[in-house]
């Protein structure tokens, strides 16, 4: 009977040891760089990704026709060694380089691009960014016909994508698009290797479209054409990237192994960084940011790389609901907010207050309009004009914010107080889980809601389109014929200067007259790494850290690299 405790202990010991053994990662080499992402990798299918961390990894694994210049983000030759754009800006001819190869040694040809683009245009692929391809002539109609009649749809030949031989690709656009080339460096336009995916293909039958088992993205099946190949992917632990030895620009890749890691919260990630288990942190933890930035200013540390980014924090106003469908009230709400105080006292970060929608000075050549400055007496007069002097007779507005970031609720409370004091407007604040919040916002179940947006491409329309009638991302329900006309006109304008002038006019009207969204501040974000040890990290407004160029400057002492994580 002595075994009463011994047997369970033995069982626990054996089970625990086996589980520990099978779940531990293998030892990594000393030259590996540990790169910590802000969030979990959701998918490595370039056609389906929408999360920043997924996109950053995809840009390390794949290469499109173009790639980004790491500093300016201008498109530079990638798989295409050169291109020609017709005078009307509608026809793009890409000349593929003859030495672009997949990580299994196969050549990258036009067929790989056509395969990928045809796949993303299938509604069944469920690609989040499929609308980016709608710039191509016939693409939208092809997609819609497939969605409406899976069996009797338009042929793919109706889409303006034509190969002439394995190394020449001609793309015809529906309308001129000044930023189309830079889209060529973005995941939805990456090529895919049909041979590698064939094994995972489930045949189409009786109206059921072609599907790929999503496990095709797991090593060793994933074949990519970029700087790295995917050597290992341990769920919830790390991704291991190793140089693709067939990559045409192999000499530019100086990092022997790159580990992409992620931690369940910012604090543990920061601790791992402080202890040397992580070399690059792809974000600056919000909680510690004010203190870290102070130390950086006082030259105590030099590893905080913080800058304004191409994203903004704002409030959506539900333009479908009375009385908020009156732009006078929306403008009054905007003018009664002390945005400087929000940034200085609540965020306590060097973020910039915003009066406009598109973060200023981000897009070369685009001049931002002036928005409405804070003016309480003018705001009060606007309310009188709207028929609600002193905020009397106005209902209590339902304000919606998502939980997860303490900052959201503090900002909402501060602004509620400003509106109450300055205008006599009252709001009730509701905090919801992200999934519920998103659903309520999409269904228009709110009066005013917190919002944040990061631009997807370097053009004002990535913001201005949010207010176009019929855009699924138009969450305010704002609909204005004049705005739609301006955006439409701009999309057919070949001259960049004239186009930007039209968009400037549209943004000016949005932020000075219609005000469907109340801009608050421009996001800032950053990276943390020791600049004496790690080089090749580009700083740009879109937080696109190109993994291709990361490398050691000063090789670490052995003890910092021995333990994984």
């Amino acid at each position: 009977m002595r075994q009463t405790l011994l047997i369970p202990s033995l069982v626990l010991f054996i089970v625990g040891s086996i589980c520990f053994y099978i779940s531990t990662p293998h030892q990594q080499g000393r030259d590996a760089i540990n790169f910590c992402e802000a969030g979990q990798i959701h998918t490595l299918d370039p056609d389906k990704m929408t999360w920043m961390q997924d996109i950053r990894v995809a840009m390390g694994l794949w290469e499109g026709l173009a790639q980004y210049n790491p500093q300016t983000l201008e498109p530079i030759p990638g798989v295409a060694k050169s291109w020609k754009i017709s005078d009307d800006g509608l026809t793009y001819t890409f000349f593929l380089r003859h030495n672009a190869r997949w990580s299994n040694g196969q050549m990258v040809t036009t067929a790989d691009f056509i395969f990928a683009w045809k796949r993303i245009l299938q509604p069944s692929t469920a690609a989040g960014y499929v609308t980016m391809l709608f710039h191509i002539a016939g693409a939208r109609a092809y997609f819609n016909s497939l969605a409406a009649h899976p069996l009797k749809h338009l042929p793919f030949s109706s889409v303006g994508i034509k190969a002439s031989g394995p190394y020449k690709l001609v793309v015809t656009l529906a309308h001129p698009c000044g930023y189309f080339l830079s889209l060529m460096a973005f995941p939805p336009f990456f090529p895919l290797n049909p041979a590698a995916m064939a094994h995972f293909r489930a045949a189409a039958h009786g109206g059921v479209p072609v599907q790929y088992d999503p496990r095709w993205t797991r090593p060793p099946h994933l074949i990519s054409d970029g700087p790295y190949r995917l050597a290992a992917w341990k769920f919830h632990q790390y991704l291991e990237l190793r140089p693709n030895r067939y990559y045409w620009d192999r000499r530019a890749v100086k990092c022997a192994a790159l580990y992409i890691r992620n931690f369940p919260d910012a604090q543990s990630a920061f601790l791992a960084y402080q202890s040397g288990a992580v070399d690059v942190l792809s974000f600056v933890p919000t909680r510690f940011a004010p203190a870290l930035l102070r130390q950086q200013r006082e030259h105590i540390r030099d590893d905080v790389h913080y800058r304004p980014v191409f994203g903004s924090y704002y409030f959506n106003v539900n333009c479908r609901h009375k009385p908020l469908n009156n732009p006078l009230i929306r403008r009054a709400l905007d003018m009664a907010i002390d945005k400087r105080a929000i940034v200085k006292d609540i965020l306590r970060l060097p973020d910039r207050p915003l009066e406009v929608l598109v973060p200023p000075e981000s897009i070369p050549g685009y001049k931002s309009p002036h928005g409405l400055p804070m003016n309480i007496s003018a705001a009060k007069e606007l309310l009188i004009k709207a028929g609600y002097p002193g905020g009397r007779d106005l209902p209590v507005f339902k304000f919606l914010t998502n939980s997860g970031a303490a900052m959201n609720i503090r900002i909402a409370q501060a602004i509620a107080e400003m509106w109450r004091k300055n205008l006599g407007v009252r709001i009730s604040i509701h905090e919801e889980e992200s999934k519920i919040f998103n659903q309520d916002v999409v269904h228009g179940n709110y009066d005013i809601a917190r919002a944040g947006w990061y631009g997807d491409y370097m053009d004002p329309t990535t913001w201005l389109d949010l207010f176009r009638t019929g855009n699924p991302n138009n969450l305010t329900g704002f609909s204005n014929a004049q705005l739609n006309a301006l955006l439409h006109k701009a999309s057919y304008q070949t001259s960049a200067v004239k186009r930007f002038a039209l968009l400037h006019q549209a943004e000016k009207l949005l932020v000075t007259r219609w005000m469907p969204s109340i801009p608050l501040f421009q996001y800032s974000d950053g990276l943390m790494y020791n600049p004496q040890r790690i080089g090749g990290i580009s700083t740009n407004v879109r937080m696109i850290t190109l993994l291709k160029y990361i490398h050691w400057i000063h090789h670490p002492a052995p003890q910092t690299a021995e333990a994984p994580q």
Partner: protein
Amino acid sequence: MKKFILSRLLQSVVVVWLVYTATFWLLMATPGDPFIGKKQPPPAVLAALRQRYGLDKGDFHAYLAYGWQIIAHGDFGPTISYANWTVLDVIRNSLPVSVALGALALLIALWLGVAAGVLGAVYRGRWPDIVLTVGTLLGISLPTFVIGSGLLMLFAVETSLLPSGGWGTLKQLILPAFTLAVLFLAYLARLSRASTLDVISSDFVRTARAKGLSPMKVIAGHVLPNASIAVLAFLGPATASILTGSFIVEKIFAIPGLGEVFVNACLDKDIPLVLGIVLVYTVLLVLMNLLVDIACAMADPRIRI
């Protein structure tokens, strides 16, 4: 015994089915849409996603379809939030982490807890017993995140004796396993103190003492085996709750276990993943309880099954 095991297994099938039904309809009743994120794709894309996860033909159809998929193919399908991994992939990768951590925590709790309990009973009313009572009270009432953060500050941040978190080396296992063990250690100490006291005052122990056995021999040979049956009965539910309750510890120490995946799956409304994890936990709990019942019957001839 055979009859008992068979009938228990049959009961378990009903239990698992009831848990599946309850989980499924609770998930359906919670607000939130798993496919609506920050950026909105065209409606056709959303429709394709619903179709892929079998959620396009109404809730009852999905209830039957998921159930059939699980019974007929033993497959929970792909997850929603980690699209490249199936539910089984996720469980296969994350469960061993939680099990390894939980097993070590239980071992610590079991041995330290029983030792402390016996010590308390033997020295009843004297200082070791008082220290033990205060200690177990603290262990039961202090929340895990306080203990975890405290240990982290003490051993990782201030002194760097141990790593702050992560997974892969035995050193990284010490702090989280101890944090996870504290609550169970305290429970087991109380439990074994009470049952030891029970046994110590019984006739056969007095007889053993009267025969002139040394106090050590009395405890080890006569008291402990009988007192530990209560401890054994506690192990079943403890295993289940240590596995499901490791979420906070996993978060504090950045451990890639199933607890964190489970909580995130609930927040993301990842229906297949939540169903899969709940069912795996259910099966584990049912099996553990059955094993413990059998073990108790074997350890104590008075228990008839």
